[in-house]
């Protein structure tokens, strides 16, 4: 797929995404900064920014095996935590000053137990996420945040004031607005950027200081103004699913002519489509944002109608021809969600393809074949 985009900012994002511990993180550490690792977008990274720390979204980029973690996990466990924990056992996350593990899924939450039993990271905490979207759940989340704030303050000797939280919310919201502007470019008939490139941009944002990231994003947006659009695609595709942080996966889809123009992913729209309210109590605002306002993933019960509406709105706004539902093997929420997506999209007349995968890209030939067949089935 041809794109004439020349952007140094984009190259930098791609480098950050391709490297686990990228130069920005190293530099942050070298300057005495603290780095907090966390799993899942439902962990409020604003609180770490407010604490003067670098939030680092956990990935296992570059992992080449699970030989150490296999003693703790089993073959019916998702490959993402297995690779992550393996890297942790190899010492590749030793630079972390802390780790927050939410009960986001059955596989991730056991990282907490295994990490605590095997590793010496000074600050490892569990974050209890609610599974519904009601007012009592906002209250629960708010209390969790207050507890986390207290623990961070005590352990690291920092003060996380409301003022600092408000300023972090503003900074993170600016990031969300910039990413939404990036997505606006993708609505064009000939978008100037590929889906793989956009994924690299989004992933990079979870592994860099947010102010640096925003500055680079602005550069990229400038580079995109007037850049030549992509014309040689066969269909406009939306990707829906869970954690996908490898742009090469999208490259395979795009290599067959399916230009990915939007998504409903953890490293995608669910991260930035809605802002955290900037008025009122910042703790309450983050809690309400996380529990009620932002798009949820299938772990949140009762929100499937809102999720499918979001997907359908995206299909309309981004002129999507077909949807690919990707899923990591052994993920129970997404297998059932895609079962419902399939039924709902069939009813709406939108072609839908389910693709199971492992965290580390494998079976490329099979993905190619299935995407080709999908595009042909769509008459493209």
């Amino acid at each position, binding site marked *: 797929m041809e794109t004439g985009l020349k952007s140094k900012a984009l190259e930098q994002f791609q480098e950050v995404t391709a490297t686990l511990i990228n130069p920005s993180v190293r530099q942050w550490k070298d300057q005495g900064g603290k780095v907090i690792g966390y799993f899942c977008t439902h962990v409020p990274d604003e609180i770490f920014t407010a604490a003067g720390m670098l939030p680092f979204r956990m990935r296992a980029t570059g992992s080449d095996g699970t030989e150490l973690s296999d003693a703790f996990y089993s073959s019916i466990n998702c490959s993402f935590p297995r690779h992550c924990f393996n890297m942790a056992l190899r010492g590749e996350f030793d630079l972390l000053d802390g780790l927050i593990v939410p009960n986001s899924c059955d596989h991730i939450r056991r990282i907490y*137990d295994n990490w605590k039993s095997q590793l010496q990271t000074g600050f490892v905490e569990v974050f*209890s996420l609610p599974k519904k979207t009601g007012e009592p759940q906002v209250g629960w989340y708010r209390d969790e945040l207050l507890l986390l704030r207290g623990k961070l303050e005590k352990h690291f000797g920092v003060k996380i004031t409301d003022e600092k939280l408000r300023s972090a919310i503003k900074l993170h919201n600016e990031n969300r607005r910039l990413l939404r502007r990036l997505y606006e470019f993708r609505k064009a008939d000939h978008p100037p950027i590929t889906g793989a490139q956009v994924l690299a941009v989004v992933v990079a944002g979870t592994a860099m200081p947010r102010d640096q990231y925003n500055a680079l994003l602005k550069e990229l947006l400038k580079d995109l103004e007037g850049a030549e659009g992509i014309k040689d695609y066969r269909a406009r595709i939306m990707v829906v699913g869970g954690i996908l942080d490898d742009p090469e996966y999208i490259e395979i889809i795009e290599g067959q002519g399916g230009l990915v123009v939007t998504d409903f992913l953890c490293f995608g729209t669910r991260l930035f489509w809605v802002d955290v309210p900037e008025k009122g109590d910042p703790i309450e605002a983050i809690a309400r944002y996380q529990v009620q306002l932002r798009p949820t993933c299938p772990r949140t019960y009762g929100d499937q109608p809102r999720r499918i509406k979001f997907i359908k709105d995206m299909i309309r706004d981004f002129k999507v021809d077909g949807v690919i539902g990707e899923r990591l093997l052994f993920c129970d*929420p997404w297998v059932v*969600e895609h*079962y419902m997506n399939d039924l709902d999209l069939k009813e709406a007349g939108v072609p839908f393809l389910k693709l199971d995968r492992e965290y580390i890209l494998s079976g490329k030939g099979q993905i190619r074949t299935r995407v080709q067949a999908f595009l042909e089935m769509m008459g493209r």
Partner: protein
Amino acid sequence: MDTKEMTKEEVLERSLARYKKERDWFKFLLDTLHMIPEPTEEDKLQMKLLDILLNSKELVIDAAVNGKPFIAGYFCNAPEIFNAMKLPWYMLMETPFLAASAPYLAEDIKGTEEIGLGSDLCTAIRLPIYYIETGQMPIPTAVLGLLYPCDGAPMLHQVMTHNKAWLDVPVYCADPPYTSDQRAINYFADELRRMVEFLEKHTGHTLDMKRLVEVCEESNRTYALWQEYNELRRAVPCPHGWGIGGAQAFAVSQCFVAGDPRCTDWFRQLVKCAEINVAAKKGPPGVKERIRYLWFDIMPYGWVFELMPWLETEWGAVLVMDMFGNFPYTLIDTSSEKTIFEGLAKRNLIDAPMIRQARGTAENFSADIRRMVKDYKIDCVIWPGHMGHKDGSAAAGIMRETCRELGVPFLHIGLDLFDRSYTTPDEVKDRISKFFTAMGLG
């Protein structure tokens, strides 16, 4: 199956077909036992159990046929409350568990894959989804769903609310906190209070607090007897094997008649049976106990008769304790509304088997193994590793370490509790035999 073209009566009949088959099966078993001229105490125990199961099935069928309110829920939704509100109910995962070795189970599992649910989703979740989607589940007045202990459970209810035939059925799911401190208990107690409001609104039944006190006190008597029974299981040889005890005790006390005098009566009979065997230094009939094992999960109900008796006859291996027979239930302080709801919250959030281990952090996996190994003179621990218990399999390393510290061999099998083709009974037997041999057991 598309039920759009069916009449209301046909839809009702189809939704009850499986349920009626199960009822008829229990009735057949009960009638057979009644034909025994001089039933033993254990025969009487089974008769009492079947009577309870049958009655529960009849109540639900009667409610469904005659348009009376009934609900679908779970053991950890505080069934004491359903009893106090006089609401007939059935457990949403009942068919996979009760239809042990039923001829249609394999066909139904195939059906789950054919409708697009894949093969790595927990079978216990897949099957109820399949029954809902194909119109083979009784449609209740209201549903109490479950958002724990695993990822699959909430998805079952999500499909339910998505299914057109169930669209008008209100669903309430109590939100489970991940922690287990007093804040978590208070939060869950409030969720249970909201559950009562939901039930009152949608079923027209009300909760009489005096009645709830009676039910909770009755359930306390039940649990005291369960404790007594488990003390008896410490004996060598163990008075009962896999066929009597834990699983039934769990089903009676949590799934069918929680806080009901019939439940207490059944436990009284259970204790009596165990006392007779302990006094006579007897174990399960025809078994010479050589290995005392802890089966740390649910039994493989889809093919239970192909494995569990073999363990006893081939190896003299007796299931002395299992996850569902363990006794951690809190006795409820009935002095006030607050203490009752806190007690119910604790029971259903922290004590209920599988919920206790799988809902939160992995501490209870190791703590329970430690306690049971010590209390019951366990020779080895078997973690069957059901393909749906993904959080548990991600804690297998922790369990293994715990067993290593205790000096007790640990076996992680990897099977499907319902689908015998996942790891066949012969493969499981082979793995167990090699394990026993390698560890010098039996």
